[in-house]
């Protein structure tokens, strides 16, 4: 995660790409990771498919279902990553629902994450209150548990979450589930400002980010962006090149 801090200090913006592991078969994962790191992303979130993804919209849910049909599991994804021989140049973050982790065992999960070179873990249905279930295990291997904050997070709760934030803060830009949207609400900008003023770690905006105008709107208020559904859909449609302008809008100082 140090890389993310360095970036913040250099004043550069991060682009975190989300992909669904095993969408199109698990073998595609290494291709996708290599493609994205060449395309200049800052970090990659590896999504683990789950039967009941209540925080996700139709795009990621459908991708997860395709991956499940391929027989993809949390364990298989982590083991697959341990086989990679190419150079992984960007931090990899696992994003999974809680149940596969519980089933796998938090301690084993942490151990396999370490072996796979994972730099962070995001669990959308593990709120701050219950973080003990996983955090001490992954922290044992110096892997941070990344917390989400949302427009509905109450002020004193926000303070507590930010105070003990690890890695980066995942700031959710919508009151809702993942998925592309045309517009973001006006209050998002102030929300990001508020979080960034208090956060000891970088603040990345995610959920619904799919257009360069979303990035233009929030670029001054955040340290980076997380893009999921748009990338997942582009890989599925074999149109990943079309996402490159979005990546450049974030990472290049002067967008081309």
């Amino acid at each position, binding site marked *: 995660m140090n890389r993310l801090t360095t970036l913040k200090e250099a004043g550069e913006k991060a682009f975190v790409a989300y992909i669904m592991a095993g969408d199109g078969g698990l073998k595609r994962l290494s291709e996708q990771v290599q493609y994205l790191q060449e395309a200049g992303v800052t970090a990659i979130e590896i999504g683990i498919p789950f039967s009941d993804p209540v925080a996700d919209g139709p795009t990621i849910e459908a991708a997860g279902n395709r991956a499940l049909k391929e027989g993809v*599991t949390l364990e298989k994804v982590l083991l697959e990553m341990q086989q990679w021989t190419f150079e992984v140049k960007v931090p990899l973050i696992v994003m999974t629902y809680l149940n596969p*982790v519980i089933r796998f065992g938090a301690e084993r999960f942490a151990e396999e994450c370490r072996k796979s070179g994972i730099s962070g873990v995001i669990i959308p249905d593990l709120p701050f209150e219950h973080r003990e279930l996983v955090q001490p295990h992954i922290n044992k291997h110096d892997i941070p548990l990344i917390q989400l904050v949302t427009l509905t997070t109450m002020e004193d709760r926000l303070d*507590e979450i930010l105070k003990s934030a690890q890695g980066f803060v995942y700031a959710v830009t919508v009151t809702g589930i993942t998925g592309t949207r045309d517009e973001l609400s006006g209050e998002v900008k102030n929300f990001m400002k508020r979080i960034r003023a208090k956060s000891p770690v970088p603040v990345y905006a995610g959920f619904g980010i799919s257009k360069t105008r979303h990035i233009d709107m929030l670029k001054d208020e955040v340290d980076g962006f997380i893009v999921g559904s748009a990338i997942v859909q582009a890989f599925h449609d074999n149109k990943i090149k079309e996402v490159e302008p979005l990546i450049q809008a974030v990472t290049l100082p002067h967008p081309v």
Partner: protein
Amino acid sequence: MTKVKICGLKESEHVKAAEQADAIGFVFAPSKRQVTVEQASELAKHVPVDTEKIGVFVNATIEEIEKTVMQVPLTMVQLHGDEPDELVEAIRVPVIQAFSIRSKEDVRKLENSKADYVLVDAPGTDYRGGSGRVFDWSLLQNATIDKKRLIVAGGLHAENVRAAIGQTEPYMVDVSSGVETEGRKDSEKIHKFIQQAKGGSMQETIEKKGFFGKYGGQFVPETLMKAVKELEQAYEDAKGDPEFQKEYHHYLKEYVGREQPLTYAQRLTEAWGGPKVYLKREDLNHTGAHKINNAIGQALLAMRMGKRKIVAETGAGQHGVATATICALFDLECVIFMGEEDVKRQELNVFRMKLLGARVESVTKGSATLKDAVNEALRYWVTNVEDTHYLIGSALGPHPFPTMVRDFQSVIGEETKRQILEHEGRLPDTVLACVGGGSNAIGMFYPFVKDESVKLIGVEAAGQGVDTEKHAATLTKGSEGVLHGAFMKLLQDDSGQVLEAHSLSAGLDYPGIGPEHAYLADIGRVQYKPITDEEALAAVVTFSRLEGIIPALESAHAIAEAEKAAKDMTSEEILVICVSGRGDKDMATYADKLEGLA
């Protein structure tokens, strides 16, 4: 926020009192607080799943430690002896190493520890593992120890813990003798200590709540945390408000038609040749099942919170109909999510909901049954959380839902208890109810849980049999996991994917079970038995013909198991069955499956 560990627990009462703590400690080393592995394993059943269970050892072998970790099971290990670094590093779970601090010299030892966390304590006296004396906190002031690794112990109690936290800003505080009275743990002192350590202001927003033993909790996306916390607060207020209770009971009486009779089933009693059989008649409620008890309670609560939009899921359609009914009565906007499969097999209820003015959304995702309807209802709630209440239909979901639904359904058990005392002058010997998510069962059982002479039996749907892949017998065949906001028992595969449940009865077709049921099963207070589709259908026929009551397919599961239970009972004994609903909604299924019935 500094975490709290309560150490040296030996009694389940005190484990329960420590529910709000972040960690509890079991002492395996010789001490007046020592417990055996078996005792610790039993006590662990009362510990919320997200609470660290820490085993305290003094110079134990790695084999002993690993074995204890597995058997209890423990999530962390705390070492109080002279354990070498190799042992510290060999332990697979996070390790806390304890140091007695007398001087700056001791601080340096601690700085070199290989453990994940270091615990500082006053020097021990007659045995290792802390003496309860206060040490000089200022010794730590210049230590180069990462505060995130620091645990402070030794002489802490409710009055000084804030000061200790202020001075050392540790990861965790650890208390044992400071929450005891005359050498024994004291529940009140435990509460007070946790409250002080957490600081009054944080109480309502960060506190973890709603566990039944290890099950329950609030496992929801962050966007919903505000809503569940608000609901928690609103329900607590309403529960204690006599006006709210009065209004709720007013509607139960004047609109639902309570109280419902506890009917003596004379012909069934004769046919089974065993105990006297009584029937709790939830089938007589307006809309035809127990679901309306809960729908009224939650709708009143939603209005009290200023929310006039309701979203709900439904399986068989009974909860959907109950919700649509109440929304019509109170003029609330109503959206019901229902799996496409259920929309097909419960056509009549779909039309009832529409007639009542509700919008019915058919869910085509996943298995297109109840589980997927809950997923969609949750997504809808996440998106519309500011003005919408999620009126969940069973004793499931994040806290406070399981508690709240239980409370609203407890009218079933409360009436039954009063009525059986009127009829028989004593409590029943056995009480049965069917269990899907478990709302009629928990409502029936809850008022009897403390009456140990009353045997409680929950009946699950075994579908085509528990040894096939087509069943919904969560407690018989399930394992621990998180679904729809709670840690509970689930039907899942080896990789943690939730499986489809199967039951002819749409209302029992759910792959999880309410967290309180999972707890009652763990501690052995309620027995859970599986009944197949075929057995339930046979019970439908028997019951219809002997008592003139056509039961819902769900309720027929309880009736079928009652017949089995009756075989081991005498005519001196009393058995009560909760008839959770009537069979009208199942008529198409009955006509199909019982074709050729003579």
